[in-house]
């Protein structure tokens, strides 16, 4: 799952800890999401999208098929 989370966070000059606090999740979870090691559940994906005033598709994208 491709993620633009790191870019969006950097645009707002938020630290990983600050983003974690705003989402109510652990900083390790932010690391996993940004590192594309974990695909969020739908509720968390929508929560993230709402925080950035974006759609889920703006932030997360399935791996492009070859």
């Amino acid at each position, binding site marked *: 799952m491709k993620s633009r989370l790191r870019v969006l966070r950097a645009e707002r000059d938020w630290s990983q*800890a*600050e983003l*974690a*606090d*705003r989402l*109510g*999740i*652990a*900083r*390790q*979870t932010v*690391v*996993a999401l940004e*590192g594309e*090691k*974990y695909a*969020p*559940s739908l509720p*968390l994906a929508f929560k993230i999208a709402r925080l950035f005033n974006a759609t889920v598709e703006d932030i997360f994208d399935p791996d492009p098929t070859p």
Partner: protein
Amino acid sequence: MKNPVDTARRRYVLELTAGMLAYAAILIASIHALNAGVPAPWRLAVALAPVVPVVAVFIAIARFFGAIDELQRKIHLEALAVAAGVTALLAVTYGFLEGVGFPKLTAFATYACIMLCWGLAAPFVARRYK
């Protein structure tokens, strides 16, 4: 802004520590009372008294699972699955060894083993998501 997962972790460590201390205290008191000769109607209650803090520890674990986020929950559930598997394997293996003269272990060993394996497995499972 307080992070709810960090708060849940701190609360869990506090509750777990309090539960284990209570367990040790009640266990020692229970053993002393049984050795001193508790009247028959109370023997069962006194013998089972250490279960109360164990139940409290399980409630603390359930509260911890309810308060952490979805990835942390997944990591701990995977670690618990690994712990259950390793404990089952060790229990069966040691069962055969008891058949050839190894000292008999009580069922308490499985509880200690699963908790220890959970603690050891969690950091390894978490590495997959870093």
